[in-house]
């Protein structure tokens, strides 16, 4: 077929289909100059790019993702790779996918895929950057209507701690099916799942019941357990590998409460394909987000209760309490947290956020952590505002003797929405775990982290962000997923483009 004939056919079919077909996508590019403070070489250039493209025709979608990473540090792996591709069909209750997909079974006790949009993950061992997601490569199908839902999947989940071009980053093979029935606002369901890898075949069943009572009370309970013996380690009998999760909530205008219970035993499946609810408060405040308890899915039990009080549009009070217990060997470790947060507005132009937190985590030898902070935002003109943010935390840590360490965060932010924002950030710590630089001979007992963030949005499609300075890393939780962020010193330029 000649080019001319093909073009005519394409234009004809294109004009017929033009009411439904479209390309869309986005690109995220990041350039960094610098490194982890104290790590040689200091002057590393690196570029990461993620390009997502999809073509939609009626209810069909074809999508692909291209990622590439290059660094002047030759010790790091460089790659250019199509890391995702998928064909999907979605109409009303029918959803079919082939290729890479993200899905959750039940509440994630057995299996959950996820993606943290717009985030770049850098592993501290390989120092390779990649998008932060855990997809599965295979096939997925579901159908739902008012009375029932059925789901089936077969796929290889990604081990996202390994570089994206590592040939061994998909060692598990998951087959699963889920079905539930809904009647009178009550849903009962079952899940069957099998995970195979080179060490063993693990089989699981799960049952759940959830629903709504009198419009104001919602509940959900799920119990998942292993049905065959652990062939790999023989460490756990089937009945010793299970997960139980329960939540009860009350919702009314101005007041809401959520109560949750968990008991997870040997529920770390395969390379870590499950993601049970953690029952740990996910904080929006920097220092608290960093001090989060990381669940230990081999043995973790506990509870969480959270209250929302909103007497009017200008006030929101959130109170949270959580407790958890881990048993490692013969030793039990407890963690707890009490948190209260009050957000309010005065005279329509002054916004305040005030919080107080008291917590402890025996796994980290942190008997007590006290934290508080205040965020103030003042609207100067319609879309011009400035914010002052400050947080303080003291941690009491006991190994052989008790040491008290402090962390401080402050930020000054000017915002001309939606075009431009500028932030000056300063953090301080005298925590030896964070302050000491292993790359130097002397022992540093304090560390300052000054930095500047600029964001420019020339139009609705493009966002450009610049960071310069030193940034503190540590554990971070976003979108329910916790991971380790590395310290950084240098310049970072990000460009996001959506089309």
């Amino acid at each position, binding site marked *: 077929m000649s080019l001319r004939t093909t073009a005519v056919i394409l234009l004809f079919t*294109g004009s017929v289909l033009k009411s439904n077909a479209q390309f869309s996508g986005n690109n995220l590019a990041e350039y960094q100059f610098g490194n982890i403070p104290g790590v040689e070489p200091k002057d590393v250039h690196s570029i990461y790019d993620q390009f997502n493209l999809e073509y939609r025709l009626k209810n069909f979608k074809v999508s692909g993702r291209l990622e590439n990473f290059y660094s002047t540090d030759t010790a790091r792996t460089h790659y250019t790779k199509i890391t995702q591709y998928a064909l999907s069909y979605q109409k009303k209750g029918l959803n079919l996918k082939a290729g890479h997909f*993200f899905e959750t079974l039940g509440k994630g006790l057995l299996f959950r895929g996820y993606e943290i949009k717009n985030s770049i993950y850098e592993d501290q061992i390989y120092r390779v950057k990649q998008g932060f997601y855990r997809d599965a490569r295979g096939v997925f199908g579901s159908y739902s209507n008012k009375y029932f839902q059925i789901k089936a999947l077969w796929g290889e989940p990604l081990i996202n701690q390994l570089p994206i071009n590592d040939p061994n980053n998909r060692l598990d093979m998951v087959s699963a099916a889920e079905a539930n029935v809904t009647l009178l606002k009550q849903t009962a369901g079952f899940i069957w799942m099998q995970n195979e890898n080179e060490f063993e075949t693990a089989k699981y069943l799960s049952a759940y019941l959830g629903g709504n009572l009198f419009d104001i009370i919602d509940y959900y309970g799920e119990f998942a357990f292993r049905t065959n013996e652990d062939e790999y380690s023989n460490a756990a009998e089937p009945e010793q590998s299970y997960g139980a999760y329960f939540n009860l*909530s009350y919702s009314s205008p101005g007041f809401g409460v959520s109560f949750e219970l968990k008991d997870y035993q040997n529920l770390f499946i395969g390379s870590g394909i499950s993601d049970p609810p953690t029952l740990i408060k996910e904080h929006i405040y920097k220092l608290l987000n960093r001090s989060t308890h990381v669940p230990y899915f081999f043995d973790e039990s506990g509870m969480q209760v959270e209250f929302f009080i909103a007497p009017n549009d200008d006030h929101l009070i959130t109170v949270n309490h959580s407790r958890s217990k881990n048993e490692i060997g013969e030793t039990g470790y407890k963690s707890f947290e009490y948190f209260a947060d009050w957000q309010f507005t005065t005279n329509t132009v002054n916004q305040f956020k005030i919080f107080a937190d008291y917590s402890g985590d025996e796994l980290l030898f942190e008997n007590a952590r006290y934290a508080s902070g205040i965020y103030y935002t003042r609207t100067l003109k319609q879309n011009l505002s400035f914010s002052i943010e400050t947080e303080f935390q003291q941690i009491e840590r006991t190994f052989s003797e008790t040491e008290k360490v402090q962390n401080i965060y402050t930020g000054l932010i000017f915002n001309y929405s939606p075009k431009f924002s500028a932030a000056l950030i300063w953090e301080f710590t005298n925590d030896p775990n964070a302050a000491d630089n292993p790359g130097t001979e002397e022992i540093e007992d304090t560390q300052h982290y000054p930095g500047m963030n600029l964001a420019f949005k020339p139009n609705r499609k493009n966002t450009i962000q610049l960071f310069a300075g030193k940034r503190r890393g540590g554990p971070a939780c976003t979108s329910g997923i916790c991971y380790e962020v590395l310290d950084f010193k240098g310049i970072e330029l990000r460009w996001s483009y959506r089309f």
Partner: protein
Amino acid sequence: MIKKITILFFLLILISSISIAQFPDIEMKDIDQNWISLEELKGEKLTVIDFWATWCKPCVSSIPKLNNIYEEYAPKGIEFIGVNIDGPRNLSKVKPFATSMKISYPLVLDPDQNLVDRFNVTVFPTMIVLNEKGKEVFIHEGFNPGDEQLIRDEFEKLLE
């Protein structure tokens, strides 16, 4: 051969660039665990889809403002759909939080981010406005003081 493929590729892009999207014909669970069709929630003139999460600071700040905007513009033919993207970790808090905040527009749950991918959303909150044919006519990412007036101004323009 490469020349031909390049020409065809650009032709395809040209065709697609003049195309019109359709309103998503899919069903999702609402916060009361009912399966509902997005088409049933479509606005007469415009449909506003707001993607948010309980752990997102600007999302929480935006909710009372969006509530007021919704009450003001619903009689003018603009419907809102709130799309909550919380995963299992925070899902049990979504309804108590949303009800306590008196969100008056319909809320659907998107824990696996199917609708997020459909609209190519990468930051939260993101507000996408669709016209009566389902074509995206406005997008607003993030939420800062004063944005409520920018949104109102944009709605007025789109309603003209």
